[in-house]
């Protein structure tokens, strides 16, 4: 009894101390500049204009130094709110357009942007900081969204596997239906994964609305494997990143920069540069924002060299400004695909959902 009472007291004390420590620390985590400002962010009472609330997708990264730099140069505090992946983000913005989640959104990509634009989620803004490359990536006819970065979804290869098996590496989408490459490819489902959707757009860009499903049927006949998520395909099925059995996997043009050998002289995977589809990520001031000027200032900040330089490492995309510098591994092993397969954004806007549904019905069944 005594020992059990003693143990009880010890355990209780430990829990209480733990609880106390946690409680004591909470105010500190809540009293960060962004924390204290958050109530004001959505309210239209006094003081709203000292904070910019930024709604972002879940890959967004910003360091404390950058936050501080933003506050110093613009006078606004930054409140960052994460809202799921690109697709979820757009849908949330559409659902909340009557009372926006913040002042500015970042992370809307060209496969989903049309929905936000049609629904009137964004307010017009053209940043004076936009570069010529960025301007080229703008959506034709739209004056609301600003391109911030871009990246290409491409099939990746495991060259060692092809060398070991004495098979030539495939170079084009056409090659993949060749029986030589039977049972070698893994891609992701366009309905559940954002690279999967981009790859479907690549096949539509290449074979047209009439021909893409035939191509997919041929791929299927050639032993294509389709999984739901990128991590699943890349880490389980791909021979280049795990113990998988498929040397051709859907990933990004930048992925080879992350499989560089320890001595830094070569990479163990490569991207098939003729199978790529370009994703462009945009930022836009939200219509009905409390602090539209702050939102615009944030977009200008995103286009500044300081932020653009961090994009490759933090978000796995290429910067849009021409003056930004790429990390060494990128410039060496992850070149920008010179001629990605393109698809008219207007066509994507009209047919996106129908294409996915047709694909689902035909290929998955």
């Amino acid at each position, binding site marked *: 009894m005594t020992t059990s009472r003693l143990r009880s007291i010890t355990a209780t004390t430990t829990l209480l101390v733990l609880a106390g420590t946690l409680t004591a620390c909470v105010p500190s985590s809540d009293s960060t500049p962004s924390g204290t400002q958050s109530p004001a962010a959505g309210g239209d009472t006094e003081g709203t204009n000292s904070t910019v609330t930024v709604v972002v997708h879940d890959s967004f990264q910003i360091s404390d130094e950058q936050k501080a730099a933003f506050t110093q140069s613009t006078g606004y505090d930054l409140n*960052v709110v994460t809202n799921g992946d690109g697709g979820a983000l757009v849908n*949330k913005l559409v659902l909340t357009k009557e009372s926006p989640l913040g002042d500015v959104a970042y992370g809307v990509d060209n496969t989903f942007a049309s929905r936000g634009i049609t629904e009137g989620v964004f307010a017009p803004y053209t940043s004076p900081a936009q570069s010529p490359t960025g301007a080229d990536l703008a959506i034709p006819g739209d004056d609301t969204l600003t391109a911030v970065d871009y990246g290409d979804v491409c099939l990746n290869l495991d060259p060692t596997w092809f060398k070991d098996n004495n098979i030539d590496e495939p170079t084009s989408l056409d090659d993949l239906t060749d029986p030589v490459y039977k049972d070698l490819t893994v891609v992701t489902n366009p*309905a559940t994964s954002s690279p999967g959707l981009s790859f479907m757009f690549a096949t539509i860009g290449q074979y047209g609305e009439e021909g893409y499903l035939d191509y997919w049927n041929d791929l299927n006949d050639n032993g294509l494997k389709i999984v739901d998520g990128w991590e699943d395909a890349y880490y389980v099925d791909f021979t280049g990143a795990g113990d998988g059995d498929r040397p051709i996997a859907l990933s990004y043009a930048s992925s080879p920069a992350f499989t560089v050998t320890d001595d830094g002289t070569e990479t163990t995977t490569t991207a098939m540069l003729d199978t790529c589809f370009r994703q462009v990520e945009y930022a836009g001031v939200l219509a009905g924002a409390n602090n539209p000027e702050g939102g615009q200032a944030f977009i200008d900040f995103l286009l500044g060299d300081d932020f653009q330089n961090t994009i490759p490492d933090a978000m796995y995309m290429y910067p849009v400004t021409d003056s930004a510098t790429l990390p060494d591994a990128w410039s060496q092993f992850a070149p920008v695909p010179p001629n990605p397969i393109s698809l008219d954004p207007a066509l994507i806007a009209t047919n996106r959902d129908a294409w996915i549904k047709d694909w689902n019905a035909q290929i998955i069944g």
Partner: protein
Amino acid sequence: MTPGSKTGTRRSLANTPVVAPHTAPRAAPHIVGQARTRAVRRLVVWGGAAAIPLIFLGVFFGWPVTALIARGFLTDGALDLSGFADVLTTPRTWRLLGITLAQGVVGTLVAVALGIPGAYILYRCTFPGRTIARALVTIPFVLPTVVVGVAFRALLAPNGPLGFLNIDGTFTAVVAALVFFNYSVVVRTVGGMWEKIDPRTAEAARSLGASRTRALWTVTLPQLMPAITSAAAVVFLFCATAFGTVMVLGGQGYGTIETEIWMQTVQFLDLRTAAILSILQLTVVALALWVSARARTSRERALTLVSDTTAQRPLNLRQDAAALTITALTGIGLLAWPLLNLLTAAFRDRNGNWTLNNFTALGTTGERNALSVTVWEALYNSLVIAFYATLTALIIGGLVAYVVSRRPTSPTGKNAITWLDALFMLPLGVSAVTVGFGFLITLDRPLGFNLDLRSSGLLVPLAQAVVATPLVVRTVLPVLRAIDPRQHHAAATLGAPPWRVALTIDWPHATRALGLAAGMAFAVSLGEFGATSFLARPDTATLPIVIFRLISKPGAENYGMALAASVILALVTAAIMMLAERLRTTTAGEF
């Protein structure tokens, strides 16, 4: 429901000289007046106790879900129910419903069948290392589904050690993973009850000549039925609405109502279809709860509860051989193997050499800053958030369990309690997407507060508490219900006001169950991903969120860090479980 109520009360009246308060109606006028004030007072007390959880559930669950579903049924402001015809005539809908039900039912049956022997070994027998074994069993419950999915697939994929089974991407693989996750729910819920059942009842049957098997079937299992059905209901809801597991392990064409709601909402923003699927999901959930309530009410009765140390005895290798074999096989084959696989992978680099680098990297923000916070900061966020979520869930869930454990005699009272019980289970059965999107359209300055809850970060622990509350209720309720109502009546007759009855009769029993419940709630909060991923801000990202981000990026270092972070999550969970166990078993001696 509360069936026990009928038999229980009747038995108590027949067997004891105690007169329950409500059996004294036709007395002198002043006594009638007293009785009425007492009735009014009782209504205020119970009404108040029920109101707090109801308001909580209403604001953070009922309202958001209803608002989102309602939006799906409104087209340009007019009610449009045409979607029912469209969705319900699609063969796809019925195929998905079939998979959902099959997955839920099979997952539940297997988890219960394996979990009951596990509960016996871990809660009824004593053996060295039991505390650790109990804590280890809980680990899978909190592990991020994506990591476990990838770990399972690494075993099952054509090149994996179990590739010869050919179950990669099949129904079997999904069910195996669901059992992996939910085994501990059965073990802990049933075990929590089993360890307190007086062994003398079964011993009496044995001394009257019943075989061990017969005593188990006719005495012990019926006594455990409320806990078993409780656990089964929870596991069914978890299995039927699993998301990450299904996405990773379900092969091409595999889908459930849950994944379809996600797809219709997140991919197509087709709220009309999503609303109908949500209604379908709610129907399945309601049906499951109804079945479970029926099974429970026909079995529930007051039991003689004893301190767990009285009920336990040392593990006997011969007598307990069957239960021990099943538990050992489950523990090693289904739980330990994937976990060990994960553990060893966390200590290897990409060339397969042993390394600690994945763990030392946890203090950084990942390969080329893949994260906004370090893994340790994320762990800290997780603990703080889980602490508040657990506190909230214990208060709300404790109140619910307390109210629902009452046995009113009026049919209205009984009905009210049945509904209340079922209502608080719903959060387990409704898609996180529906709740998350519902938050967005309802929680901008809710109830007149000038606070945009949607982006405040306060919502994270609250959303986790909503999910943890049903587990608290299901853990505490079977124990409270098993308290003999005669004890309440006796106390009341002796003049104890309701609060004193609660404090002296219910509280001592409840504290032990609350310890178990606190552990469960903490585990749920630590592992929660669905709702948290909708709400967490980058600087307050939790451990599961960070793990998901790491594994969503290329790079051997990021992958290794995701595994190492999962190991940390598992260890922290095990430690907290052991602490909760310790607190619980030691306070047991105090009454």
